[in-house]
């Protein structure tokens, strides 16, 4: 299966009339093996959206693309593989330096503790 790596352009809000978004520390992580940047502590999905990525996984039976739906950890639409662990809800899991994030296919695969930093050493 060919993955669409980048679905669109960055969706980060630069200026807002009412809300101020505090600037956070930038961290590096990988998505499908590619190095990307996001903010530490934001939900993983926010960093993916900021990089134009909306397709988070493919469903087990019909291999349908799945994305964000509720954004608060209720629905499990956003399950991905994070650091080798499948079924992580990326709408509530915080982004950390060196994370390895992969689109989950079906029920996912347990690969054990992965880190994008170790790989680079």
């Amino acid at each position, binding site marked *: 299966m060919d993955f669409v790596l980048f679905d669109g352009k960055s969706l980060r809000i630069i200026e807002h*009339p009412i809300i101020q978004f505090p600037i956070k520390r930038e961290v590096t992580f990988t998505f499908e093996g590619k190095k990307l940047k996001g903010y530490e502590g934001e939900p993983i999905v926010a960093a993916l959206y900021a990089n134009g990525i909306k397709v988070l996984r493919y469903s087990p039976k019909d291999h349908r693309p799945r994305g964000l739906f509720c954004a608060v950890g209720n629905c499990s639409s956003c399950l991905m593989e994070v650091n080798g662990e499948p079924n992580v809800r990326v709408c509530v899991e915080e982004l950390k330096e060196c994370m390895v994030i992969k689109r989950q296919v079906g029920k996912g695969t347990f690969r054990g503790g992965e880190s994008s930093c170790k790989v680079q050493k």
Partner: protein
Amino acid sequence: MQSTEIAIIGGGPAGMCAAQAAAEQGARVTLIDRGKQLGGQLVKQTHRFFGSEYEYAGIRGIHIANILEDAVRKLDNIEIKIDSTVLAIYGDGVITIEEGENYKKLTSKKTIISTGASEKMLVFTNNDLPGVYGAGAVQTLMNEHGVIPGENVLMIGAGNIGLIVSYQLIQAGVKVAAVIEAAPQFGGYHVHAAKIKRIGVPILTSHTIKEAIGKEFVEGAVICRLDANWKQIAGTEKKLDVDVICLAVGLSPLVELLWHAGCQMKYVPQPGGYVALRDRDLQTTVPGIYIAGDASGVEEASSAMIEGKIAGLSAAEALGYNKNASHMKAKYMEEINILRAGNVGKKVREGLKMLAV
């Protein structure tokens, strides 16, 4: 195993008001929320609230959250747990919590469930494509995390939530192609509708969505007109080039914990689906378990706050604390009845009639 006198699950307006009311009576309270901050729905609301003047109408939701949180943090008999998801309530009264990365257990003498509500889904072709969101998700992404869901939105539902979130999208720099509504009239307040109409966003009543278009994610939507019997009219289909489809077609109370605790539940359409039977004190059929706010039936923030106070006072009173509690409860009951009076509150009153024990 930790223990507390009153455990409150959900730190939105209902939970925070319950905590304050109970703690002011003298009870030891543990307030638990799965979010990174207290406030529930309020922290995403940038608009000035409608509702009762006693419950901060006219103030932006985000600021109401701050006022309530300050009051809660001032009371040192309230322990606050954030980033803490309640997983279950067992028959022996044990509450299990995922607190950060840890699994914790808590027992309580009384428990108030104020978990709020979640969005309803809608049936249409390709409704599972990435790019179809609940309105709450769009708000969370945009107003909490500073990321927009896409560039061009079709909003489904012209109740207050659909209208307000449309305006918030525009504030964040997103285009709203249209707001569609199945009913022949939109349900939200005119002020909110006027705001987005002025910007040029059409509100199409008697319209529904037929399908989402796209292979990997939403690239368009087909809408069509409905006749007087809510049937789709063939030949009226129209394609919109949108990359976001936002559902604002109503909320259902989040009641999993109530089911789990064994509360007697009933399906009642007015409050949004399955809800727990309750007495005047907002106690469910399981002694010691109380409900408040949207979890007890979808309404609005003012009533959530008053219900929180009633539940908090009731639970504290049942534990023997009584600093004028019954008198205060009577006052809040009167206040909530005024809020639910008249035409606006008709639906709420009908629903409540079916839930009293």
